[in-house]
């Protein structure tokens, strides 16, 4: 449905998005995840038609809508958009906002469509209210209804939950996914919050410095990150140095683990292994580590531990496993298939890493 082919977007001469390629299939929800300033919103605006592309092409349902020097204007793309600040029209009622994009449809049809969408977002009874009379979450849902009303072939959402309370964010994110799936909408979301991305999207792309590092499912991003930045940004965890043993496993300070070795890696070569908090368990025996910090999270504790070498690791335990700061805990790895990166011997920057690993 949506295809980006080596898209470059630039302000003046400075490239903001570098040669991004990705595909969102019909009915799928894609997500661009990354820290602020990584170019994800710019890319979204290019898809919407607000920014021209410097090179590459954007195709919607097979037809090119952006290529260098030519841009189909936003109003002719059939692309809906939900803005970070919602951008509701303050001079129009809720219903009029939703019907804004239904101009030219028969009156009765437009009314019914608006009614259906207001029902879908659960705000039918507020149809005569003005935007400033609504709460943030309600405004967000109206913005969604408004963007969906014309039946766009693609829906874009720019940080749609960033202005909301944390509790509201999660429930609303689930609601949005449900609505999009029920309606069979193809969508592309932009966010800096991985939980939001995981809750809504089928396929997520992590962006850094204008480049797309990995375009994959949430599970794979977490368990099979292909770039050090992705490993770092998605989920918690630390990289521990290790050495490849004769049998192709990796020996680290906390024990020996198995995983896919980098190319050209022979026994004895130095690597780094991603250790997630749930990859470690406290045991009767194992590597001793000192508790330096702990966070109670209801069902579990998240401990920060110092290994004898001084390296810090995180460990998630059941909340019955109580230790005090200063206690010594014995750790054992429980990793089926570890994520392994070549050792960062030259101290290469993330940026170079990103370039090497570009999707």
């Amino acid at each position, binding site marked *: 449905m949506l295809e980006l082919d080596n898209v470059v977007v630039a302000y003046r001469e400075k490239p903001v998005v570098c040669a991004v390629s990705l595909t969102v299939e019909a009915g799928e929800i894609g997500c661009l995840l990354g820290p602020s300033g990584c170019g994800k919103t710019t890319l979204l605006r290019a898809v*919407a*038609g607000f920014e021209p592309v410097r090179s590459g092409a954007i195709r919607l349902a097979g037809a090119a809508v952006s290529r260098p020097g030519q841009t*189909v204007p936003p*109003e002719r793309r059939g692309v809906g958009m939900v803005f970070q*600040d919602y951008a509701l029209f303050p001079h129009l009622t809720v219903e009029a906002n939703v019907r804004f994009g239904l101009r030219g449809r028969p009156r009765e049809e437009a009314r019914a469509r608006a009614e259906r969408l207001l029902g879908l977002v659960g705000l039918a009874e507020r149809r005569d209210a003005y935007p400033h009379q609504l709460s943030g979450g309600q*405004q967000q849902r109206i913005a969604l209804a408004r963007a969906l009303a014309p039946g766009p072939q693609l829906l874009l959402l720019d940080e749609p939950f960033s202005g909301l309370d944390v509790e509201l964010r999660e429930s609303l994110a689930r609601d949005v996914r449900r609505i999009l799936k029920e309606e069979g909408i193809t969508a592309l979301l932009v966010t800096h919050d991985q939980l939001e991305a995981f809750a809504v999207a089928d396929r997520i792309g992590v962006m850094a410095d204008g480049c797309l590092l990995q375009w994959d499912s949430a599970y794979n991003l977490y368990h099979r990150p292909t770039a050090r930045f992705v490993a770092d940004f998605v989920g918690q965890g630390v990289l521990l140095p290790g050495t490849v043993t004769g049998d192709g496993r990796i020996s680290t300070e906390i024990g020996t683990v198995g995983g896919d070795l980098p190319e050209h890696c022979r026994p004895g070569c130095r690597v780094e292994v991603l250790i997630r908090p749930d990859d470690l368990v406290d045991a009767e025996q194992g590597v001793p580590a000192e508790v330096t910090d702990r966070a109670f999270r209801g069902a579990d504790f998240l401990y920060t531990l110092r290994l004898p070498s001084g390296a810090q690791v995180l460990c998630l335990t059941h909340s019955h496993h109580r230790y005090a700061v200063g206690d010594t805990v014995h750790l054992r790895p429980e990793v089926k298939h570890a994520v392994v990166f070549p050792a960062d011997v030259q101290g290469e920057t993330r940026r170079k890493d990103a370039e090497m690993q570009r999707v």
Partner: protein
Amino acid sequence: MTWVSNRLPPDGWTVGTTLLALILALPVLTVVGYVMQPAGEVWRHLADTVLTDYVANSLLLMLGVAAGTLLLGVSSAWLTSACDFPGRRLFEWALLLPMAMPAYIIAYTYTGLLDFAGPLQTLLRSSFGWGYGDYWFPEIRSLGGAIAMLSLVLYPYVYLLARAAFLEQSVAAQEVSRSLGAGAWRSFFSVALPLARPAVVTGVSLALMESLADFGTVQYFGVDTFTTGIFRTWFGLGDSAAAAQLAALLLGFVFLLVWLERHSRRQARYFRSGSGYRTQARHRLSGWRAAVALAACALPLALGFVVPATQLGAWALRTAGRMVDADFAALVFNTVGLAVAAALLTLLLALVLGYALRLRPTPPVLAAVRTASMGYAVPGIVIAVGVMLPFAWLDNSVDAWAREQFGVSTGLLLSGTLFALLFAYAVRFLAVALQAVEGGLGRIKPSMDDAARSLGLRPGQVLRRVHAPLMRGTLLTALLLVFVDVLKELPATLILRPFNFNTLAVRTYELAGDERLADAAPAALAIVLAGILPVILLSRSISRSRSAADA
């Protein structure tokens, strides 16, 4: 799919708006151009004798009017927006009424009342048996008097903008301040006022620009300022170059003012947040507090409008039979027609330039628009000459060319037409309309444009369906402000108008200039009455925009 070019705002737009802004800056530039002409001898004379007076008096006048308008405007704006007391609803709109009162007219009426020979002092003398020199009474014809007169009719600018700003403020900021232990007064000075500062500064700078341009009041009171100095140098000394140089110096003051205003506004540039504002709970005042609030609002209204209007009314009753005739209807028609046409034209220009600044603030457009905006502080007669010279030059050049090419004379095509006059008004009052338009545009978040486009609207439709309704209040404000200003305008009208074309202001001036105040009263009162209606409309549109969802 249809393809359109990427280069969104076409270059013709940039070129066109730059050109337009330059044309509007032409009168000011013409005056500045005179600086190149030598005027050494007269200039030295001015520097030796009166220049320090001009500078000192102009500065003191500005300081005084700034203090006066701040005091009257901010206090009344705060009281009517944040407090509740008897009469508040009346004051909300009535406090704008002094805006309809031309400064020179209020100066005439107060002189009639407060002068040594006036009824008040005469009454004092006859009641106490005093004679001249036996008692102290403030001299109305003084710098202080001029400051008082100008403050009384100009404070509504500050009131208007400050009130809008106070109403827009989120109640949360106030509550936070109160919850942190600051009392109502400290909350006002440390939160509400700083938040409203850009609006207040804009209001004060408008008032100060008007004061700098004022001629009638200071001249009548015998206060030597730049404006009277320009007249004196030009007419008394017959030296237009030196007069223009004085005008250029005056522009220096204005430039400083504009810069200060811009600077203050840049520091606090914000779009209104998406969540909008909630209705602010008013402090309910009672007892002596309510009385003080009532007095603080009643005073500027009474002194700035009720007293002078009553005096005018009393005079007009006596002379209306003689002065109001068939010609008077034509005067009213001319005045109102001219003011409507000028307001529409100025608004249109301000819109075009406002969008030029929003979409493509290139340095040439920026410079030209700022130059053109300075016209507001330039005395009307200087603008008039700045319009007259280039228009006449253009007319005569076209005429000479036509004579040479075709042997026909085209005569004067623009000079001496209503078009020239309207152009002068546009230059003079562009700043007022532009302030309003820029303010209105600043409130339309760019994401609203994007949202409308993504919902299928072309750029032109976005203007009509999103900007127009959102800007309606703003546009009305700009329209009404210019309308009222044109009603009152005198010097440019006087010199640029076509044959047999009179306005109420011209009529008032001619009679008042001949010291026939009572005879001038009907025309003066008609100006005030013509100005009241838009002023009331203005305040109603502001209240409505608050109570409804209008941004």
